[in-house]
């Protein structure tokens, strides 16, 4: 399989702004080309757009706006893991030889239709994600004797880390008491336990090994990819306190990269809700089952930014189609040691975990210098 590198990126701030989806897409792609003049856009063979927005023909529109006439142009939608799935598609085009260089742009508006999966009627009238998150939280707390104060630390940590990220939606730090006393959405979920929908964009350029080495001295290689979809419906999840799709996706990605989880120096974890962070850490093997919160607490108390250095979805905001790309950009910055105030100490290997619809589908990437 041909090697595939990440050679450039651009992203917008995550906001509540009422911008058109085309404008959000254009902004991050424009920033990418402005910051990386060594990328010759005439060499871009494919433009992939990651979004849940209902607007039509976004990839050809973006191509025209940035002045590219690609061979391949289309959108990719897979709810919250659209971003990493688009990166996997770009990887596949390049590693198969169908393309040498691909632009992947993700964008979403704060009012994205991707927040609700209408098809999943097994959820009855409880289709909003806060309901599956409440069931996961209740089940996880009960199974592992975890309190809501414990879970609140995820939000405290990730809002704290987001303050070092100029693009994050969160501009405030919170205490455990602030989280517990924030609006009670359900018996098991407070407002500050949730990532917030927002507007935002993120773009990345992937290239073949030969082109990557010509463009930059510091390409970041995608060495492992794992994907698993167990169902579309939330009620098909066999376990309500672990993430089976994440477990399988990370095992595949690590196997492909010939690495084990203890070698991961920095990771972006899909913390759509507080409970998702310990569940994902345990399911992927960062720690034993039931010990995810101990790991999170330790990282928080030692001010270690290893997990969700950009602030996670809770601190950054969650513009669905852009999230997986933004997570990937964060790991690229970490490995290139350009993450400034968020920088983890000399990381060599990073991991991205991006999932959809109550962990019914997960995508995991392993990135290396």
């Amino acid at each position, binding site marked *: 399989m041909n090697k595939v590198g990440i050679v450039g990126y651009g992203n917008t701030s995550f906001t509540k702004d009422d911008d058109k989806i085309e404008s959000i897409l254009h902004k991050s792609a424009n920033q990418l080309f402005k910051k990386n003049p060594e990328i010759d856009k005439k060499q871009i063979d494919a433009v992939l757009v990651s979004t849940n927005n209902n607007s039509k023909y976004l990839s050809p529109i973006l191509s025209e706006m940035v002045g590219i006439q690609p061979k391949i142009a289309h959108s990719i939608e897979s709810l919250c893991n659209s971003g990493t799935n688009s990166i996997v598609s770009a990887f596949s085009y390049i590693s198969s030889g169908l393309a040498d260089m691909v632009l992947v742009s993700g964008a979403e508006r704060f009012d994205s239709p991707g927040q609700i999966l209408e*098809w999943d009627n097994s*959820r009855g*009238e409880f*289709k909003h994600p806060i309901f599956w998150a409440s069931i996961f939280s209740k089940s996880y707390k009960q199974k592992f004797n975890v309190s809501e104060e414990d879970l609140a630390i995820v939000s405290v940590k990730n809002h704290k880390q987001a303050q070092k990220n100029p693009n994050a939606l969160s501009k405030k730090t919170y205490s455990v008491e602030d989280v517990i006393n924030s609006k009670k959405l359900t018996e098991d979920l407070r407002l500050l336990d949730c990532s917030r929908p927002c507007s935002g964009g993120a773009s990345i350029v992937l290239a073949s090994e030969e082109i990557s080495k010509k463009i930059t001295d510091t390409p970041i290689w995608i060495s492992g990819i794992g994907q698993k979809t167990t169902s579309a419906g939330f*009620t098909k999840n066999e376990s*309500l306190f672990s993430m089976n799709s994440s477990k399988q996706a990370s095992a595949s990605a690590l196997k492909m990269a010939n690495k084990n989880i203890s070698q991961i120096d920095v990771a972006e974890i899909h913390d759509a809700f507080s409970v998702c962070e310990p569940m994902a850490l345990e399911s992927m093997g960062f720690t034993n089952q039931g010990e995810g919160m101990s790991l999170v607490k330790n990282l928080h108390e030692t001010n270690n930014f290893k997990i969700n250095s950009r602030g996670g979805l809770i601190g950054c905001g969650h513009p669905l189609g852009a999230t997986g790309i933004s997570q990937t950009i964060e790991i690229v910055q970490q490995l290139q040691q350009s993450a400034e105030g968020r920088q983890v100490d000399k990381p060599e290997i990073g991991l991205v975990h991006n999932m959809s619809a109550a962990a019914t589908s997960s995508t995991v990437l392993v990135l290396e210098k």
Partner: protein
Amino acid sequence: MNFEEELTKGNFAIPECVSCKKIIWPPAEFCNVCYNETCLKTGQFTGKIIEYSKQNEEYFCMVEFLDSFRLMAKINDKPQIGQIVKITKCGILNGNYFFQII
């Protein structure tokens, strides 16, 4: 019989394959094992509460039926994990299925 037509009338019927008898949930026209058509099985089905939480004064539960499939339903009184329940009211409201259990 169509699942949604029955649900609209307040009847909860379970879709199963006419050939291999597998229960197909969420409801679909065809079996995902043998690809034959599905039909509706009627009756008074009991389910078991797997998990629950509460919003305002309303409890919402995940309920498992026939050791086979699960759905989200609401219940008035505080539920217990493992509690055996049955659907007392169901239908389609604003495009969403709803299920009330007791």
